[in-house]
């Protein structure tokens, strides 16, 4: 069975530095697939290659069997891939509603250059926006500026923006980073809730989160995938322990 997302020999060099080296990766539809590895292993760069932020030096990316290598970043959402960023990456001066609304509008069939109608005239999009915001527990902050939210709420908003794009695959880059234990747990639960409906590719450092929610784990080290397997396999993998678990914290 072909995976939803397939990377073939994907590489990226920055000048002389090889950030991602010959990565082959397959994400199965409907799974939660985690990528772990020490800082600087090339995980975020790898995400950037998939989401079109930077073009790869070599290799190809296929999504639903279609070659999406080098597609500009603004076309990636339209093939069904949404992304959440490592650093909170929202529109700070816009309201929560507007943050999610634009992402929703982007994927709607309305004319993209529609500047005759008001935002409020798009009733259906507005309703769906509110739905997603409620689902993420932000309904009370609907008309607040995003910059006024707490960090945890901003992370949730980030996920909401991703969901609004009606994706098949969601790329989550350290969704729990910097969150308090309680908020981390909420985020974990949220991801688990989403797991049934979306395919999720996840970068995560907190091992208990990874082990709790992942179906499949790839370990990255110096830009290469050094191990792959289910949570238990990875836990026991020696190479991983040496390269990663042993060396960390």
């Amino acid at each position, binding site marked *: 069975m072909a995976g939803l997302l397939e990377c073939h020999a994907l590489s990226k060099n920055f000048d002389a530095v090889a950030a991602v080296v010959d990565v082959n990766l397959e994400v199965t539809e409907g799974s939660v697939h985690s990528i772990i590895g020490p800082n600087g292993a090339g995980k975020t760069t790898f995400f950037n290659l998939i989401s079109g932020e930077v073009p790869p030096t070599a290799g190809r990316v296929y999504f639903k069997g279609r070659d999406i290598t080098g597609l500009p*970043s603004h076309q990636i959402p339209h093939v069904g891939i949404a992304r959440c960023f490592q650093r909170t990456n929202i*529109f700070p001066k816009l309201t929560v509603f507007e943050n999610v609304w*634009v992402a929703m509008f*982007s994927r709607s069939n309305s004319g993209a250059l529609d500047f005759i*109608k008001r*935002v409020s005239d*798009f009733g259906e999009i507005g309703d769906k926006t509110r739905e997603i915001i409620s689902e993420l527990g932000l309904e009370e902050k609907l008309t607040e500026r995003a910059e006024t939210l707490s960090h945890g709420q901003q992370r949730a908003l980030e996920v909401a923006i991703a969901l609004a794009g009606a994706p098949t695959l969601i790329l989550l880059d350290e969704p729990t980073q910097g969150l308090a234990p309680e908020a981390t747990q909420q985020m974990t639960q949220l991801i688990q809730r989403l797991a049934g409906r979306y395919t999720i590719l996840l970068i995560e450092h907190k091992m208990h989160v990874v082990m709790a929610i992942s179906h499949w784990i790839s370990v990255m080290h110096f830009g290469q995938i050094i191990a792959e397997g289910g949570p238990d396999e990875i836990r026991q993998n020696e190479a991983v322990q040496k390269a990663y678990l042993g060396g960390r914290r």
Partner: protein
Amino acid sequence: MRDRNIFLIVLAFVVIGPFVQPKVIITEMLIFGIVAVANNIMIGYTGMLSFGQAMFFGIGAYVAGLLLKAGMPLIVALPVGTLFVLVLSIAVGYFCVQRTGLYFICITFAFNQMFYFIAYSWTGLTGGEDGLPGIPRPSLLLDPVAFYVFVAVVFLACLVAMKRIVDSPLGLICQTIRENPSRAAAVGYNVKLYKLTAFTIASTFTGLAGTVYAMLYGIVPIDQIHWLKSGDFIFMTLLGGTGNFFGPIMGAVGYIWMSETFSLYWARWPLIMGIVFVVVVLYLRGGIVELIGKVYGSIQRAREAP
């Protein structure tokens, strides 16, 4: 304050203005008000700073002026002039939006200079340094009052149209680009395309204002396409405040009023203008809008205090 109330204030200004000041000054305030509001679609909403808007103002004025001189009716001259600017701004904008930040400023500035020198050198067409004279007004608009009403109607129509645009999804998309261009791309928007759209819309309204200006004195002076004029447009916009749709109108009014008033009292009046700008930048980023807000706020507080 709600938009509707502000709109009423603007309306009140348009009606009362010509009774307390020379019509021509209010007329210019309205014409440049269009430009400043349009400019804010770029500066305030999309986060692009163009130092070349005078080229579109001037070209709109030249094209409309030439058509009117050729005997075309108003109904042809103004739309054609505006359309010309629309097409041109797409072409120029295409090159400009490839770059961001300082480079964008430099390129728009440089394009402005290029078109200035074309206008300057192509004397047969534009009159060069002497300006393009003898632009007729349709007989209906010969009377200064009639012309003022015409400009006021154009102004209000532009205002409504631009308000509609910024309240539309496009307006919101522009703001996402201002806030976070890479994120805007990541939710699926072609950032360069939308920047070009904002550039084109702002430039087209600027060009439209130019076509109206051509009829004001019946002449298009060369300084209307000079880079210093582009500077004026930016200052009007920032002076009013970029955080509010209506702010730049106050900027245009305030800027023209200041230059008219200060120049009566001191020969070195640009120095006062400079000081005002410095104060705005260092202490009053929100421009006149912020000033009014602060005054309004302190009045409210004073009223609430026992």
